[in-house]
């Protein structure tokens, strides 16, 4: 019995961690290059909304996913332009975008699909890797996940390789640590940062789409509920390294999974506390439980020649 409960718990943890993973790795790349995107929350919500509407309108979940990705491009561009070209305060612009997106998606949902209706939206299918899916007890519960997760894993691995072994990775690292060095080497700091913000947008939209058309197959207003901020916290927790960020996201996912798991075990902890748990953990993480953080030196500072 216990093993099955554990399997379900692991599976839920992974499932709940997935949007954070996708958005977190995306944000990691931006922060390595020196841009702090407070608007990850807004980008995820945009992806969630657009993917849901797209899938509902076309009936094809894949088309919904594509529309979700496309919809995030203008949002990411606005963040990029504001942060790099107009050199606006990155925190202010991020929060502004989040407010705007929350309002716009709520409005949009009510107008397009109708208020408070929990319309069933065609969603992404599950997939299980061959071999792993056949493990007794664990196989199904843990490894049968929405295929977007596995696609995401591939992207994450590629990202890690690029950051570590290519000239692009060196340029990104330099842009966040010493942008002047990048400028004097003949590269464009702005171009690098623009690309990174767009990548963050892309990954965030995948994370958001996972929430709506991957997981619960519907859209609810403000459904990201702070996931974007948890993603940012996971980057800090992970000390701006991919490995650490992934671990942090899994931890947050597990904390969220406890919400559903503990009652079934008969453990009676107030639900509110369990919902609070990921945020509490994130707070402890950024509060130095994992040691003093060393952010990329130029993080949050617009570059001026």
């Amino acid at each position: 019995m216990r093993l099955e409960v554990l399997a379900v718990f692991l599976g839920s943890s992974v499932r709940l961690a997935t949007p954070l993973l996708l958005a977190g790795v995306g944000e990691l790349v931006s922060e390595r290059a020196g841009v702090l995107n407070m608007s990850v929350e807004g980008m995820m919500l945009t992806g969630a909304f657009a993917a849901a509407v797209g899938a509902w309108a076309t009936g094809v979940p894949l088309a919904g996913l594509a529309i979700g990705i496309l919809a995030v491009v203008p949002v990411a561009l606005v963040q990029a332009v504001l942060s790099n070209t107009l050199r606006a305060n990155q925190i202010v612009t991020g929060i502004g975008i989040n407010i705007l997106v929350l309002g716009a998606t709520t409005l949009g949902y009510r107008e397009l699909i109708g208020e408070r209706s929990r319309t069933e939206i065609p969603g992404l299918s599950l997939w299980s890797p061959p071999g792993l899916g056949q493990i007794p007890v664990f196989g199904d519960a843990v490894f049968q996940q929405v295929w977007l997760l596995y696609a995401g894993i591939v992207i994450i691995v590629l990202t890690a390789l690029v950051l570590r072994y290519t000239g692009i990775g060196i340029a990104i690292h330099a842009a966040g640590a010493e942008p002047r060095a990048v400028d004097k080497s003949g590269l464009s700091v702005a171009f690098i940062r623009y690309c990174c913000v767009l990548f963050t947008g892309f990954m965030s939209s995948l994370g958001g789409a996972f929430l709506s058309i991957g997981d619960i197959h519907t859209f609810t207003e403000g459904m990201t509920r702070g996931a974007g901020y948890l993603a940012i916290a996971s980057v800090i927790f992970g000390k701006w390294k991919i490995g650490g960020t992934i671990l942090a996201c899994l931890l947050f996912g597990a904390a969220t999974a406890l919400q559903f798991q503990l009652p079934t075990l008969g453990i009676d902890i107030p639900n509110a506390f369990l919902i609070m748990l990921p945020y509490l953990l994130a707070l402890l993480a950024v509060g130095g439980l994992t040691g003093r953080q060393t952010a990329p030196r130029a993080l949050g500072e617009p570059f001026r020649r």
Partner: protein
Amino acid sequence: MTRGAAAVRQIESISTEPLLALEGLTKRFGSLVALSDASLAILPGEVHCILGENGAGKSTLCNLVFGVHAADAGAMTLDGRAYRPAGPADALAHGIAMVHQHFSLVPDMRVVDNIVLGQQCGMVNTKAWAARLERLAADYGFALDPFAKIEALSVGERQRVEIVKCLIREPRLFVLDEPTAVLLPDEIEALLDLCRRVAQKGCGIVLVTHKLAEIKRAADRVTVLRGGRVVARSDRPAVEIDALVRAMIQGELQKLDKTAASSLGVAGAGNTRAHLAPVGTPENRVLQVDGLSFVDSQGVTRLDNFNLAVGRGEIVGVAGVEGNGQSELGAALSGMAVAASGHVYVGDVETTKFTPKQMTQTGVAVVPEDRHASGCVLELSVADNIFLNRLETFASYGFLRRRALAAAARELMTRFDVRAQSPDVPFAALSGGNQQKAVLARELTLPNLKVLLASQPTRGLDVGAVTAVYGHIRDACARGVGVLLISSELDELLAVADRIVVLYRGRIMGSCAADPSQREKIGAMMAGHLQ
């Protein structure tokens, strides 16, 4: 025909076509005219020195050539074709490379990664690059560890990385902006030698400097800048050096204050101390440092068992290039960092664990090496900055008495010749020299001043400001203040200090009297050779 064009024609008529020709360049920053109608020509294979005081416009000229800024007027030609770089990328593509005063290296990356930056996008074959680096360095006669992290390298080593970064692109024109300011005496020799070798291979070298010794040793031709204008040229700099100096500072070298002359790197200018201050007896000691040690956050020992005593009215020079523990010493004496072990005494009081406020109250003044980082707040007004460490004296019931503050500031500004429109303008509006004078005004007027720690106080200042700064320091000494002068400019220390202590990798290598005859011994100690 403009004077600039005439100069270019004259050079063209000699024999070779100029590699780079600048005609009538002008550059303004707001209301400040940094460069005005500047014209000169660089020939391929020559070492062309641009001589001028700090603030004469040399860096601006380099930045225009490298595309960091765009000129407001004038034109540049490269190989006879119009050259208007849109940015450093453009300049690099045209074969122009530049080593800046402030290095543009990423501290937590390795040497090889810094070199690869900007060279390619795809998978990096680190081994191949490392081999290429080592070969290139060997070609030019020095050694380089491709896998060392920049933050672990000394300043001289970092500069070599910057240079290799440029040379690997096989440039046709190589610009070096004040490269010797941070080097040890024998490193300077090596650098000038390197310049010769690079020039011999056909590359044009532009060496920007304010040191006369370098002109004599390395220059083929010289252009002199003063106040943003070209005021003199020479094809035989070693012979015409006096005329060049006259043009640079609009005065005679011999008539210059000795310390000011030392800032131009004129060796053997002689010690300005009228008398040797009494060697510190215990009653006479204003500062005593016993066994001070510092360990940084990565566990590296930055200061190792540092012992020093400074007597009343004595100037002790601490020689050594940046990165050998000077900033840690400054941090300890200003209460900004906690020592791992050791004691510091000011007079009778032990100040080892004092906060900055307590240090100030005990009479310790600090002029930091990077005033913009820790010495001033650029956005606040001049008055606010001058009284930054004792604003409470202008507060009654919590309210600031602004008029009293401004009046007191005006008085100090007059005394220390800080030139500004008014005490209320932002500190950033002042020139470097005036900013430094303002910082001195603040530090030297501490109520019970006993010790002054001045770190690189004349860096970036023109001759006039240097004279003023040392005037104030000497006045303080006459009043009995003990001065600890940290500088990487050996000539400056020889001209001003009573005795010199050499700091290398956080340890004292040795000490001796501040006599020009000791120059070589001190230079050797600065390079880490125990005497």
